[in-house]
């Protein structure tokens, strides 16, 4: 049996119906644990495997690089010789590729940099404001600019969208100055990737035509997270004629409303494409009691597909006996809650801890939990996107790479100098180096290495020598990376330091980037891909994962703890204020729905009577789930 036949044979009839879909629009409404990602990857593999003599391409877009990597790995395993016909990525990476290839029509050079750091963007805005003689207090408009970009609004004439015409004028000026500064730095920020791709497609019909000609089938995972801007991009790309759009979504898992995700996008898709709909209600992940609780919970929402079938429990082998799958615990205070949960986790053997997650609505609760686990001697990590490295060593390495690609990048010089100063306890001023470079005409990297000179520290000397050689030959960046990695201090203690975390992160990043662009890609592309990705290290096998519910989407664990199930926490204070019928409350309910459906074997829900000293009622969601509340707080 081939890999594909094997994959196909494992599908249920409903999954197979979605997988075998060929032409025309399809909307797959799939609950948590229903195997939707499997449906998607198997469909990609099947489309390609069945047409070995064809050359059409298939694209599948999702929302995180990690999900995209997993999908690509799976497809490569099933159809290794057809894999180059599949473009698997995120919306951002897809837009990045489009702009690399066709951006010239809107003045974008293929080797653009991606500014993923807020600090880079803030600096850029500050400079743009100064250079244009604008009011320095207008730096506060960066968030406004992002909102405009997310709505795909270009700076020209954006003033008229503001009620206050004075503010509107100022935003337009600042936005224009910011965009001009990005252009002259040959850089794009995250929001620009989508906004500029949309601008390209909506200005030039020929570009969308190219994608319709080359890509015969389009697939979108986690479609419920699509923002207005992303949806309009898809629509503009498809035009009026393209129909082979396949979207997988769960309207009960929209938890990015604050970021622009909305049930409206699903409705627009239905209106614009008139897709056939297939539901995958069977849940193969959670024990039946969790499925039942999730069903009881989510029917309280109104903003969802009217004809949506309730989840069906499909899991057949259970680790624990009936009646033990959901545990509800009550504590007096949040401290007691954290301590008790930590103690409970400490009782679980090390080797199982990689399959334990503690989920909470807020980061503050996770931090308290992290401390409690640490005190209980349990290794844990808060999983969260990192835009940058943390150690001086890796900040220095990344800055050196960036400076080699863009020899005049002042911000990279600042990072490089700061990181190296921190590393070797030096006091070199990046201003002096920039001034020196202006006189000597050398690149900033070469000038910096010259300024460090030859000192007492052998390692510092070796690194500056490497940097000097590298600044003359930026194409040798892979060798440079290897040489620098060799010089980094090895892990000394049990507890992972920033360097260790960054090193682990770097290894996994390098693998992921290699998979995306190959081993012969240039430095510019390497940096583009690096900017797109989180610098967070993968969690080790013996560590407990702490996650906000938002980060937990798409993940699953054997043991899941959801803490802080109290009014004003989950549901949040704002949603309670907005009222039971509010969109905010529905979003909170979906948060709870997502949280409990992460559990493969065992779910522990907990709440305290007091949070931050204030008495709180148990979460209404506990009652909605039909659980019996404990009469008294546990010790």
């Amino acid at each position, binding site marked *: 049996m081939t890999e594909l036949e094997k994959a196909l044979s494992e599908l249920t009839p409903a999954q197979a119906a979605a997988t075998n879909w060929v032409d025309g629009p399809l909307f797959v409404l799939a609950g948590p644990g229903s195997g939707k990602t499997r449906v998607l990857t198997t469909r990609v593999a099947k489309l390609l495997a069945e047409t070995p003599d064809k050359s059409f391409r298939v694209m599948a877009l999702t929302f995180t690089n990690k999900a995209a990597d997993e999908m690509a790995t799976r497809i490569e395993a099933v159809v290794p010789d057809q894999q180059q016909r599949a473009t698997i990525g995120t919306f951002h990476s897809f837009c990045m*590729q489009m702009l690399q*290839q*066709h951006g010239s*029509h809107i003045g974008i050079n293929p080797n653009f940099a991606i500014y993923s750091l807020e600090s880079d963007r803030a600096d850029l805005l500050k400079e743009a404001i100064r250079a244009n003689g604008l009011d320095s207090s207008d730096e506060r408009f960066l968030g406004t600019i992002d909102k405009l970009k997310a709505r795909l609004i270009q700076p020209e004439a954006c003033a008229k969208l503001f009620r206050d015409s004075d503010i509107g004028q100022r935003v337009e000026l600042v936005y224009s100055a910011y965009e001009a500064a990005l252009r002259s730095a040959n850089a794009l920020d995250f929001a620009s990737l989508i906004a500029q791709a949309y601008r390209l497609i909506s200005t030039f*019909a020929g*570009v969308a035509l*190219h994608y319709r000609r080359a890509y015969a089938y389009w697939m979108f995972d986690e479609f419920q997270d699509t923002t207005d801007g992303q949806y309009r991009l898809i629509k503009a790309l498809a035009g009026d004629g393209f129909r082979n759009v396949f979207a997988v979504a769960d309207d009960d898992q929209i938890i990015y409303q604050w970021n622009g995700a909305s049930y409206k996008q699903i409705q627009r898709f239905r209106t614009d494409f008139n897709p056939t709909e297939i539901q995958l209600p069977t849940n193969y992940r959670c024990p039946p009691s969790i499925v039942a609780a999730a069903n009881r919970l989510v029917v309280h929402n109104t903003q969802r597909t009217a004809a949506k079938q309730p989840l069906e429990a499909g899991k057949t082998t259970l680790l624990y006996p009936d009646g033990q799958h959901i545990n509800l615990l009550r504590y007096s205070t949040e401290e007691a809650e954290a301590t008790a949960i930590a103690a409970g986790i400490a009782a679980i053997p090390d080797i199982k801890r990689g399959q334990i997650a503690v989920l909470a609505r807020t980061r503050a609760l996770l931090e308290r939990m992290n401390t409690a686990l640490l005190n209980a001697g349990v290794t844990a990590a808060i999983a969260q996107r990192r835009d940058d490295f943390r150690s001086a060593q890796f900040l220095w390495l990344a800055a050196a790479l960036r400076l080699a690609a863009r020899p005049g990048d002042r911000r990279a010089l600042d990072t490089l100098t700061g990181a190296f100063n921190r590393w070797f306890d030096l006091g070199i001023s990046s201003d002096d180096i920039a001034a020196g470079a202006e006189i000597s005409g050398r690149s900033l990297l070469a000038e910096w290495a010259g300024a460090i000179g030859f000192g007492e520290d052998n390692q510092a000397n070796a690194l500056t020598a490497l940097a000097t050689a590298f600044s003359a030959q930026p194409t040798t960046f892979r060798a440079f990376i290897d040489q620098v990695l060799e010089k980094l201090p090895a892990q000394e203690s049990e507890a992972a330091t920033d360097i260790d975390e960054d090193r682990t992160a770097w290894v996994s990043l390098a693998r992921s980037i290699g998979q995306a662009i190959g081993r012969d890609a*240039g430095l510019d592309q390497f940096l583009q891909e690096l900017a797109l990705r989180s610098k967070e290290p993968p969690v080790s096998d013996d560590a407990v994962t702490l996650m906000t519910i938002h980060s937990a989407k798409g993940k699953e664990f054997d043991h899941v703890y959801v803490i802080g199930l109290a009014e004003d926490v989950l549901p949040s204070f704002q949603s309670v204020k907005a009222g039971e019928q509010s969109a905010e409350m529905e979003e909170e309910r979906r948060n709870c729905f997502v949280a409990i459906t992460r559990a493969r074997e065992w779910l522990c829900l907990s709440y305290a009577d007091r949070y931050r000293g204030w008495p709180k009622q148990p979460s209404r969601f506990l009652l909605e789930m039909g659980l019996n509340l404990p009469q008294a707080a546990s010790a």
Partner: protein
Amino acid sequence: MQIKRVTIANFRSIKRAEIELGATTVLIGPNNAGKTAILEAIRIALTRRWGLRGTGFTEYDVHLCAARTDPKVGDPVVIEIEIQEAAVGEWPEELHETLADIIQLNPVSGQASIIMRVSCAWDDGEQSYIPKWEFLNTDRNPLAGKGARATNFQEFFSFLPVFYLDALRDAGDEFAARSQFWGRLLRTVQIPDPLEQKSVRIFNLLNAKLLAADPLLGNLATSLSDISRVATTGTPGQANLRVLPLNTWDLLSKAEVIYQNDDTKPWLPLMRHGQGVQSLSVMFLFRSFVELLLGELYRADSTPVLALEEPETHLHPQAARSLFGHVAQLQGQKIVSTHSPYFLHHVPFRDLRVVRSGPDGTIVKSLPREFRCRVPNLPGFAPVIAASGGLLEYDGGLSELVIKGSLPTPAYNSLLVACQGQADMAAMHVRLRAARDASLEFVPDEDLQKLETFARRIRGEIFFANKWLLVEGQSEHHLVHGMARAMDFDLDEHGVAVIDFANNGNCGMFTALARALGFPWTMVVDGDLAGTQYIASVQGRNFSPAEVAQFTRQIAGQTIEHQLVADGLQPELKAILAAQGVPGVAAMDDAALIAALSGDKCGYAAELAAQCAASLPLTQRMPLAIREAIETLRGLE
């Protein structure tokens, strides 16, 4: 799929050249002008080889000139190949899909194009010439991301395989078992296994019987077995004689083409036929290869690119004349160089590229249909374009103003005015001016049609000439040849084509053609009204008054005969007429003499020309305008 344009810089004799290519493009020009350099540039650019050092370029490929004597120092060799979809949908789906990552777009129409650049410069670190292949975007920047992956080249080249048949092709080599077409054709032949086994059995049996037939053969085999005792140690080997092939491939590899001229002649192997048949056979072999095997070896949608040098080699003129039709019908894109006027006979004018060497390296001239200028679409252009009656268009996808003919001054001025207020107005003006100047050389289809009709007979001759002398008729044709010889400027030796335009169309179109293709020219016409009109018609071709004054001359008299008489050549003329048996010559007055000579009905001009050739004093008495025209030719470059 077709190469639209090749741009070459710093390659051999070429400092910089841009050559537009069609389905069939014919390169003509003197030896060493750069024709082969163009063909080789295309071949090298489309045959990247991996992992092989030094393939592609050597130091002899770098263009050298007074300003650059060291091939290791200076700008790199650059060859850019641009292919473009003629209309959306021209390219097959497979191509569009397979090459999706390198395709560039006319973003308005969606027409696809691919731009590939190979550049090569000396690398001090590697101590070698390092070539670099890359795909470019429309701004000529290298593509990043997936477009920069090396796998794209294999795919791209598989759609555009290039084949080179050089002038020295040898049918013996081309029909060898390891050759590019014949060998590959033979190797694809599949003999069913049973037949193969049966053949081998029969070969073996027959071989044994033949060896047994004469003891000499058997003894020979035995004595040859001693080889192994010397050559190897230990295991004793064996030698045997083989008079028959070992297997069917052995047999097939010796297959050869036999050819019979006609029913009455014997069948003979190709190699026993004349050079012409052999040369021709190679081209038809290429055709068979393309038809039978190309899709299998490359892709169903592959477009073969054939670089073909001098297809006329060793061919009879009549065969050369019909050859162009065969070449044009070959599948794929053909770029052909030729030295044969006969081959040129049927080549459409717009497919011609005249290649010659100039002071700054190779120059390539052609007869384009349109001229393009990269300028932004300024609001002020719209009314000028609207009023141009189709002459002007704006190509929004490529951001180019398109001029489909000669741009008249008023429209040109309006375009200049429309640029006012733009930050880079000066640069736009420079580009507009260059495009306008180029457009003034436009030769319209009607002219080329006329040339096809009237001048087919002389096109071979004139396109292989160095300079053109335009005269009205047959008499002048004779006279200029004779006079020039006496003036020590033999027209044939100096490659001057004398065009008697009155019999071959009109002079205006010849002068326009000469300018567009870069042929230096001069013209001499009669002093009558017709002559004045001829000069006016030249003026009407966008020549400046200074150029008209420099290159055109009118003889003082009404006609050449009037002028000869006016120049006091009556005695010579009368003698010639008398010798030709014209009655009453002696009594003729000037008017009668002129009447007798007019139209050269009596062929006097040939005789007078012969006398001129033999006598410089006589030539010096001939009409001044003609002598001046010859002197002008001598000075033209």
